[in-house]
C-alpha cells in the first residue's frame, strides 16, 4: 500500500488510476497538509501547461460563449457539496441545476410566465437553446465562406448575437418557416437591439425576397433577409422592441410598404 501522504505529485499530473484517485481523495478530506501539497502541485502542473501554450482557433471563443449563454450554473458550494474531487463534481448535477434567469416566476404579475405561442415555442429557456444553436450556425456560415470579409462579418454577427443573448432582459422566440427553414427573433430592450436569425431558408426565384415585418397596429417593413449564406441575421428596426409580432412574407420585390402575401413566418413576441 502506497503512503497516502506522498501522492500529491502523481495526483496533480493525473497518473493515478481511478481507484487510487478515489482512495487519495478520501484521504485528502482528512489531511490538511496533503491538501496544501495538492494545491501546490496543481500550480506546478498548470505552469507546465504554460510551456505548451498555443493560440486556440478563433472559432473556439464564439462557440464557448454561445454555449455558456444557454448553460445554467451549479449553485454555490454547500456543506454537503463534495468540494474535493477532481475540481468538479462531474456532469450529473448539470441537468438539475437551475439558474435563476430561467426559473419562471410564480408571482402575481406573471410577467415571467412563458406563454405558448401560436407557432413554435417562446421564452428564454427554449428560445435560448435554439438561438445558441443559431449562433453556432452563423459562425459556421462564416467558416464556409471563402471571402475573407464575409467570413469576418459572420464572426462579428456571431459575437453580436452572443452578446445579445447574454443580456439580462433578452427575449427569444423561434418558429419554423412555412417554406422550410427556421427563424429566431432575439430582442433586448436594454441593449436596444432586435435580430431575426434565419437558417436554411430555401432560395427564392427571380427578384423575390423574404421581407420581414413588425406588427403592432399595422405591419411595418423591417428589413430583408439577405441572399446567402444559408444562415442570416437581419437587424430589425427599433420598432421591433415594442412590437407584438414579427412576420416574414415572400414578396415579389423589395421596398413594399405593406405585405401582399400571407406570412410564411409569424411569431408573437413575449411581453418585455
Amino acid at each position, binding site marked *: 500500500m*502506497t503512503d497516502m501522504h*506522498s501522492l*500529491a*505529485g*502523481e495526483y*496533480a*499530473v*493525473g*497518473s*493515478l*488510476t481511478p481507484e487510487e484517485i478515489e482512495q487519495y481523495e478520501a484521504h485528502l478530506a482528512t489531511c490538511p497538509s496533503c*491538501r496544501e501539497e*495538492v*494545491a*501546490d*502541485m*496543481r*500550480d*506546478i*502542473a*498548470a*505552469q*507546465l*501547461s*504554460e*510551456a*505548451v*501554450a*498555443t*493560440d*486556440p482557433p478563433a*472559432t*473556439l*471563443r464564439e*462557440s*464557448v*460563449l454561445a*454555449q*455558456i*449563454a444557454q*448553460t*445554467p*450554473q*451549479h*449553485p*454555490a*458550494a454547500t456543506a454537503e*457539496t463534495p*468540494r*474535493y474531487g*477532481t*475540481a*468538479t*463534481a462531474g*456532469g450529473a448535477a448539470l441537468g438539475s*441545476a437551475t*439558474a*435563476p*434567469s430561467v426559473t419562471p416566476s410564480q408571482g402575481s404579475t406573471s410577467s415571467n410566465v412563458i406563454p405558448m405561442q401560436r407557432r413554435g415555442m417562446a421564452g428564454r429557456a427554449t428560445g435560448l437553446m435554439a438561438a445558441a444553436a443559431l449562433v453556432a450556425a452563423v459562425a459556421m456560415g462564416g467558416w464556409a465562406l471563402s471571402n475573407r470579409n464575409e467570413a469576418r462579418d459572420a464572426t462579428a454577427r456571431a459575437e453580436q448575437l452572443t452578446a445579445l443573448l*447574454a443580456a439580462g432582459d433578452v427575449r427569444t422566440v423561434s418558429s419554423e418557416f412555412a417554406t422550410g427553414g427556421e427563424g429566431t427573433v432575439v430582442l433586448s430592450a436594454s441593449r436596444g437591439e432586435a435580430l431575426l436569425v434565419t437558417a436554411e431558408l430555401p432560395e427564392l426565384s427571380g427578384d423575390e425576397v423574404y421581407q420581414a415585418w413588425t406588427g403592432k397596429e399595422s405591419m411595418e417593413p423591417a428589413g430583408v433577409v439577405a441572399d446567402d449564406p444559408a444562415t442570416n441575421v437581419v437587424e430589425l428596426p427599433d420598432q421591433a422592441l415594442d412590437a407584438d409580432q414579427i412576420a416574414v412574407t415572400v414578396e415579389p420585390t423589395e421596398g413594399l410598404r405593406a405585405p401582399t402575401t400571407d406570412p410564411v413566418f409569424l411569431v408573437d413576441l413575449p411581453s418585455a
Partner: protein
Amino acid sequence: MRSSNSSGELVELLQHVANGDSAAFAQFYDATSRTVYGIVLRVLRDAAQSEEVAQEVYVEAWVSAPRFDPQLGSPTAWLNTIAHRKAVDRVRSSERSLQRDQRHFEGDVQYDALDTSDIVVARDENQRVRDALNCLPEAQRTAVQLAYFEGRTHREVAEVLQLPLGTVKTRIRDAMKRLRTHLEEAAS
C-alpha cells in the same frame, strides 16, 4: 497568468463568473485560453478533438465556477486540472490511444517526446518553465512527459519505459518536487 497579481485578478473574475457574468467569463477565457488549448492539444495531438475538448473544459468551468474555492488552489490550477483531466479522459477513451500504445509496445517507432524542445515552444514567457524542465534528470523528465503531457497512467509509463511501477512513481514524485523548487526559485 502565473504571477500572484494576475492570479488575484482571475479570482476576482471568477467571482463575477460565479454570479452568471458572461462578460467576465469572456475575459477569463481570454486570459487562459492559450494555456488550456495548449495542454489539451498536447495531450490529444488532434486539433479538431482539442477544440471540442477545450470547449467542454470552458463549459465545465462556467458551470462549476460558483463552487470554485480560492482556498483550495489558484484559478489556473483549478482550470488546468479540468483541462488536463478532460484531455486525458478523451485520449484514454479513444481508439487513438490504443494505436498509440501499440506503437510504443511494438517498439517500431522511436519514442518521440524525449526532446523537450518538442514540447516547449520558443517563447520568452515560457523560458522559466523550460529551464525548470531542463534541470530535471532525463529519467524524471521522461516520466513527467509521458505522465503529464501524454496523459498516461503510471502503469502505462512503467510499461513504456520497461521499469518497475515503484520506480516510475518515485520519478514522477521527485520530478514534481524538483520542478516546484526550480519554479519557486525562479519566481523569487
